[in-house]
């Protein structure tokens, strides 16, 4: 399987107060990071239900990054702590389903941490690139992985 042609599709759920602000700052600072990421702004990562994470994989995401505030620094006090536990639960479920748990990751970013966020996104995209496309066929199409195997 040739991964050099594969462009991962990574969803990044970013909380409005920290991670999204950091992404904004990264833009202002003209920091370059891979375009493979689609950022979804949420009021807080605590808004993320487990269903959002599993639906992302069901509809074809190759990887999902959850970026919340630093622990102790959540605008809503503990939203990011709820997200942490839900992400952990979802990672365990990915294992049960037969998907690699490395496809889902949570990072903690403050609004000033533009460079660490871009590094986290770059790292996630690279991790997913190495893992290869999601083996889940979706939308009636076979995944490119199963086509080539």
């Amino acid at each position, binding site marked *: 399987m040739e991964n050099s042609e594969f462009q991962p599709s990574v969803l990044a759920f970013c909380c409005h107060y920290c991670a999204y602000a950091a992404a904004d700052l990264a833009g202002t600072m003209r920091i370059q990071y891979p375009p493979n990421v689609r950022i979804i702004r949420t009021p807080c990562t605590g808004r993320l*239900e*487990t*269903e959002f994470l*599993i*639906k992302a*994989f*069901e509809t074809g995401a190759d990887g999902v990054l959850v970026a919340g505030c630093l622990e102790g620094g959540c605008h809503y006090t503990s939203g990011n702590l709820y997200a942490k536990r839900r992400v952990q639960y979802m990672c365990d*479920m990915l294992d*049960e*389903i*037969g*998907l690699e748990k490395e496809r889902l990751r949570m990072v903690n970013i403050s609004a000033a941490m533009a460079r660490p966020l871009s590094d986290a996104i770059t790292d996630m995209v690279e991790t997913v690139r190495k893992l290869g496309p999601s*083996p*889940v*066929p*979706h939308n009636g199409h076979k995944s490119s992985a*199963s086509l080539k195997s």
Partner: protein
Amino acid sequence: MIVAERKKIPELFDIVKEHKKLLVLGCGTCVTVCLAGGEREVGILSSALRISSRLRGVDLAVEELTIERQCDNVFIEQAADAVERNDAVLSLGCGAGVQAIAERYHSKPVYAGLNTTFIGVLEEQGIWAEKCAACGACVLHDYGGICPVTRCAKRMLNGPCGGSREDRCEVRADSPCAWQLIYARLKEIGQLDKLRRVAPPKNWSHSIDGGQRLIVRQDHRI
């Protein structure tokens, strides 16, 4: 309330994989409260089964529906159309709910998606604890409201085994010694003298062995 836990995905997939159209049926009562089989869990499990089936090249369409209770005909009949449309039902109700669904829709395979575990309560967020074993002959009045059948690992009815360390059970170190709790409670309510009474061996014939238990209220039968 009844507390249950979702079966693991590999086991569930194995159970349902031969079907083409599956209805995942949730229940809005006990299993919703214990976060095992409510509408949200139906959604998550259905997505998981779809992903699992696609990963394995198995053609499986999953429909989702949650009814208020699976142990009442009034609600069970609301699922009729959905059950009809599908080849099989994966019920996320407790054991009673699964069987009620299976009895009502007897021409379709009905499977259990949960392991029904115990009668218990929510002790703190995310932790449910067993309280009642449904032994059929409640003796809580003699033990200050603390059940020696469920709380004591040895089900002792006549005082501690003497093996407890600090206040922890000898068998289960993460559990408090039930008899320590019973003693403290009886002392608090001024009923310590109840401990002087020797309880005879428990009559287990009212409990789980011996076939299906029935309760009949003639005053409510026509």
